[in-house]
């Protein structure tokens, strides 16, 4: 009897393991409806820039490499790659990938897609391959890229959905209409798009990873977050990807909410431009150039308490200490120990030492979303404790971006996001080459940091890159061009009938990959 019990238990255990590993419990069929905050702009990868277009492109197309759920670069359309020289990359493609039109994807398609991006006649709004000198097909399934100079984050560039591989004949057939009738090699085929109403995709049974479980995916734009929340709670849509800060606690229980720190870095930008701030216009000097004033601002702002007030229940989990996501391979934990912490008395003392005991007047430029508005108001109250009288201005996005890039502000509550490669954060936000529109809106300039970031972008090994980026982070943690706030929480609220769907740090979802194959009851 005991023996039988042992066999029974072992068999049950094996069955459970098998079911969980193979996804045998998954049901095939059904429709998944995902709410987007906005309608996509275009479904042509080369021309796409906005997140919502990218989310759909990600389902219709494939690219050479991709970031997995942990933020690691993994092969997608390629079997492997090699970097034999600093400026030469060779990729070996899979031979079992077909486009939705039935043709096999080859090296010529990769070369054509890259040339299309690089050709000025295409008028691609963002030249993603500015570092590439030449792309050529070595044989039917091998591609070689030659770069102008060594560029270590090259793989992260290729992982962007904007460099998804396109079949040449479909562009030739459809012309500009390809943007409304895309054909790719991804898990879902494009069916229809009614602007501001819905984008419909259906299963591509020959998908090289696995046959998708879902029959159909519908993307529905719902601009109002509160309306989207109610839609997922009533089952009108299956998934939403944003939640109002005040509703996080409720949605956790009512909406199966998953929250994870995303790739969006939110921070108070301290404008150190020597001439452009309103402070300079009034007084002839910019107090934020004085390190003691920047230290005082950081010491007076109780970030932990503010985050727990703005994002109750999740504030601690999204806390930022620097400009690089904590999950990054280049993240330097030392910066957490260097963080100024909260000490109002010390802040007042530093202001007095810097000659600003009586404070000054300044302007806070803030994005108009609920979280950043709340932070701007708390920042305004904090500054008052240092005798700094601040006003808040929240113009519409276009105006705000223009003013941020022109340096026409004193303090800014801004955000930034990039791929997980450290170059995407540190270089753009802190290198003096990128003052203004490049991303360095603090107008921060430090020659050793510039050098370290240049080395980090060109070093040949990951260890070398890591050492440069770690050193740069320490300098920045001491110099404090920002008050680091938080990593934008990525939300995913769904109905209970949806399975295998996970929040992704980049803010969109993977529906079919070697790791997941989403299904609905």
């Amino acid at each position, binding site marked *: 009897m005991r023996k039988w019990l042992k066999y029974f238990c072992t068999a049950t255990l094996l069955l459970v393991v098998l079911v969980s590993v193979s996804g045998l419990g998954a049901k095939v069929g059904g429709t998944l409806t995902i709410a987007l905050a906005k309608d996509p702009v275009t479904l042509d990868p080369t021309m796409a820039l906005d997140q919502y277009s990218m989310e759909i492109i990600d389902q219709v197309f494939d690219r050479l490499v991709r970031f997995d759920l942990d933020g690691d670069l993994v092969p997608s359309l390629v079997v492997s790659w090699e970097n034999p020289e600093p400026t030469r990359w060779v990729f070996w493609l899979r031979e079992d990938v077909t486009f939705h039109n039935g043709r096999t994807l080859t090296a010529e398609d990769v070369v054509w897609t890259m040339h299309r991006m690089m050709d000025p006649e295409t008028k691609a709004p*963002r030249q993603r391959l500015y570092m590439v000198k030449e792309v050529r097909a070595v044989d039917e399934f091998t591609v070689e890229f030659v770069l102008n100079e060594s560029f270590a984050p090259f793989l992260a560039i290729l992982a962007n959905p904007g460099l998804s591989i396109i079949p040449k004949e479909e562009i030739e057939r459809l012309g500009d209409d390809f943007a409304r009738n895309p054909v790719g090699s991804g898990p879902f085929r494009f069916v229809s798009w009614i602007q501001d109403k819905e984008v419909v995709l259906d299963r591509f049974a020959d998908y090289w990873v696995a046959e998708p479980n879902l029959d159909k995916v519908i993307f529905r734009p719902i601009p*109002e977050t509160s309306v989207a929340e*109610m839609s997922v709670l009533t089952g009108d849509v299956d998934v939403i990807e944003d939640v109002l800060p005040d509703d996080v606690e409720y949605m956790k229980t009512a909406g199966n909410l998953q929250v994870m720190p995303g790739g969006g870095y939110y921070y108070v930008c301290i404008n150190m431009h020597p001439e452009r701030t309103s402070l300079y216009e009034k007084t002839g000097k910019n107090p934020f150039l004085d390190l003691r004033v920047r230290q005082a601002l950081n010491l007076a702002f109780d970030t932990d308490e503010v985050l727990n007030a703005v994002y109750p229940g999740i504030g601690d989990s999204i806390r930022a200490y620097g400009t690089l996501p904590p999950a990054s391979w280049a993240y330097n934990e030392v910066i957490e120990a260097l963080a100024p912490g909260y000490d109002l008395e010390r802040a007042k003392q530093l202001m007095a030492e810097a000659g600003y005991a009586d404070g000054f007047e300044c302007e806070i430029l803030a994005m108009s979303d609920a979280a950043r508005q709340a932070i701007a108001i708390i920042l305004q109250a904090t500054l008052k404790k240092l005798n700094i009288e601040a006003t808040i201005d929240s113009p519409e*996005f276009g105006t705000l971006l223009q003013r941020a890039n022109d340096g026409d502000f004193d303090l800014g509550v801004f955000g930034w996001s990039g791929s997980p490669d450290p170059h995407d954060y540190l270089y753009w936000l802190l290198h003096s080459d990128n003052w203004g*529109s490049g991303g360095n809106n603090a107008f921060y300039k430090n020659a050793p940091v510039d050098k370290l970031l240049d080395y980090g972008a060109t070093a040949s090994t990951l260890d070398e890159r890591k050492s440069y980026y770690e050193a740069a982070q320490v300098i920045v943690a001491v110099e404090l061009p920002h008050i680091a706030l938080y990593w934008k929480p990525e939300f995913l609220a769904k109905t209970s009938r949806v399975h295998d769907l996970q929040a992704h740090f980049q803010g969109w979802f993977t529906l079919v990959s070697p790791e997941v194959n989403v299904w609905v009851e």
Partner: protein
Amino acid sequence: MHVTPGDPALIMLGAGARAEDLQALRHNLGLDQPIYVQYGRFLSNILRGDLGESIVSKRPVLSALLQRLPVTLVLTISSLIIAVLLALPLGTLSAIRRASILDYGSMSFALLGVSAPVFWVGVIFIFIFSFKLSWFPGSGYASISGDGFAAFIRHLILPGFALGLGMAALLARITRSTLLDVLGEDYVRTARAKGLREGLVVMRHGLRNALLPLVTVLGLQFAALMGGAVVTETVFALPGVGRFAVYGMQSHDFPVVQGVVLVVAVVVVAVNVLVDISYVALDPRVKYN
């Protein structure tokens, strides 16, 4: 829009744009040309029935507008019908039962309706009738051809009421005050003296004569409804012209905004012409030679 800060190329590329990309994009979009050249091109295109292309999506503005216009017209006309159906009985009852509880009640409703912003009313409606009671869908649009008549109506009721409520309130107040004036006229007294029933006096001699200013206001308010559609379409996720305008303004997409303004202006002028023509039917004294 050209005067206000905000560069469409910058908005498209977002933070972290390379200077070379910005410059190339501005050139490709024609934004590096003087404003008078851009406007001249717009005017010459209009003469050929071409409203240009959206600088963001590259789609022809005219076809996008024509695709969206039916949604906005259906929404505004249905909210107009709802407003009239609510306002006429309320305003009439208030006038004939002046200073009664009914009068105070309906005028309080009118005050509330005029004061409540349409976006707030919309969210409250969704909360009550979609989220709590599950009577109607909270967002989205259904077309008669694709989704059937029942789905079309179900998707239209909440936004129609949300947009029509404010107008119903205004019309109820105007109906009441106009009707009170008319009911004090000599011909109404004569009608009563002839022994006509009060209902007949109010409906035939009172309300009909009160309709003229009401129809004038209706025509003028149609423009306000088109404006309200901007908010309503955003709250209820309807694919109409209003939402297109919001998108155009947010992205500083000049051709889209110019196209929306032009089309809305044409619709509003057309509606007011219809209102002027309707005077003939409503008032025998009015004649157009």
